[in-house]
């Protein structure tokens, strides 16, 4: 494959975006929603604390943002590396 090197650059850029996104994914759900909830207990939200909000709503909103960000970023990355669909 002639454009192998460009594919590799494309693939490693993709992997970087995936890793950053998955770190955010884990922090808002397993982190803020469960394990770090005691640390956030000082911040109160509507009769309870921020961790409860993240567990029941906040994480879902962040997940949405992540997927749309990834779709937008990757479709741009495809074009930058010339590997978008014809």
């Amino acid at each position, binding site marked *: 494959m002639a454009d192998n090197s460009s594919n590799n650059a494309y693939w490693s850029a993709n992997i970087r975006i*995936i890793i950053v996104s998955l770190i955010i994914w884990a922090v808002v759900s*397993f982190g803020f*929603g469960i*394990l770090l909830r005691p640390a956030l207990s000082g911040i109160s939200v509507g009769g309870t604390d921020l961790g409860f909000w993240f567990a029941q709503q906040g994480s879902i909103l962040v997940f949405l943002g992540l997927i*749309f960000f990834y*779709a937008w970023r990757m479709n741009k990355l495809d074009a930058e590396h010339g590997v978008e669909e014809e």
Partner: protein
Amino acid sequence: MDQFTINLLFVGTSFALYIGIAIWARAGSTSEFYAAGRGVHPVTNGMATAADWMSAASFISMAGLIAFTGYDNSSFLMGWTGGYVLLALLLAPYLRKFGKFTVSEFIGDRFYSPTARLVAVVCLIVASTTYVIGQMTGVGVAFGRFLEVSNTTGLLIGACVVFAYAVFGGMKGVTYTQVAQYVVLIMAYTIPAIFISLQLTGNPIPALGLFGDHVASGEPLLAKLDAIVRELGFNEYTAHHADTLNMVLFTLSLMIGTAGLPHVIMRFFTVPRVADARWSAGWALVFIALLYLTAPAVGAMARLNITEMMWPNGGIEGGAVTVEQIENEARYDWMATWQKTGLLGWEDKNGDGAIQYYNDKNTDLQAIAAEKGWEGNELTNFNRDILVLANPEIANLPSWVIGLVAAGGLAAALSTAAGLLLAISSAVSHDLIKGSLNPNISEKGELMSARIAMAVAIAVATYLGLNPPGFAAQTVALAFGLAAASIFPALMMGIFSTKINNTGAVAGMLAGLGVTLLYIFLHKGWFFIPDTNSFTDADPLLGTIKSTSFGAIGAMINFTVAYIVSSMTKETPQEIKDLVESVRVPRGAGIAQDH
């Protein structure tokens, strides 16, 4: 018009709509049967995915489990939405680029082994069948209520309807029908929630009302709820009581399972382009989030309403609801209606003419009970799966809302059951029969075997649905564990590693599925047959890890075994490495090939 007629009217009209659409868009060729000719727009596809995804577990069961447990069951909310992130980032675009019809085809080709394909088919069938059992539980509850018959009769009628419905058309019929079902189910879920949120908090958006103030007391709703349930000896609603390790594993298991379930992954084969597969996952989650952001509000508000109904005079001091009130007052009619299904029950144990609802396991409350002459909790049976369907009656909403909720619950159960049956039937006819047993089968023969497979799957699920291993959402959670332990790791390694070879993948899938299935059967009974279990989830085999949470561990076993076996066996051939390279870039994604 009485409530029964109104329910029939709503359910009948919505069914006529779905069947009408299914006939209008009937599948002709096999390609249309499986993947709707790949002409589905991302937003349409997202909506259909949402209907497919949100089953009896999400619609009927989940809010009930949250209502009676509170924060600890947040796992359902994070797990069943967080999986879409994995799906969008790790699987959907690549599987679309690969361009075949089924998940097992990808596994068979990537791991250049008919055995791998066969093992994947077995994993899919095991996970999907378990999932259908959960759906049948929900179908039984919904039909039992709206036809006013027992749960068992409801289940049998429901099974016939699901079968007739799923046999009707393939994916194309199903795609547009599911858009209609999404609209019905989301309205049915949010409209009563809006009414209740307005009643309790004055806020028309339930998701915001949950964190708002309770109008009657002026306190924050959740603080009020915490106080009320604490007085009755129950765990505080917002507090963390569950074992943290189990909660993390359970959430992870649901997330990974979401990205490993064939009927959801198949959806991403139906979009025209790789770029669309990325957007599709986002749109699916938008439509799913509308329900998932509302569900915790439904749970909390219903818990508050029910508790206040059982103690109508302001807590323990004011005295419990009397048997006379339950029998005569219109606002307690729902209790008599649900009693008929056998899913709600009460008993005046101490003969004082009142029904005391409290936690009789709590020592503080036992002391109060002894002093007041109570002899145990008298609300003896409250099946979690009835909460969402009973909710509009509990809140005393107009009868058309109750009819709408009945139609929505059935839409949720039917759409998912149909999608799963399609996944099972395509696994059997396309992968098992055409792929390995009889490659020369005619198109007609293939469609026929697909329909026979559907019939068998639904019969098994109905039989096991009569004695389900748990509430609908709990049974469905087991299916997710199985998908997490078997399919997801194989797909992910197939895309992100060229190192994993045929032997490694097969060993990994078998180990993941085998160990997880063993763990589930040890806790839930062999083949889910009651009383054949050696352990219970209250006292599990390994520390605090329940059978519903084991999928995450099964996935880790799968990854580890696949890696070790691959490093000890022959390297992946060059043409497969090239295949993986080509799956990683969108360019060249034509329309999919049928072999």
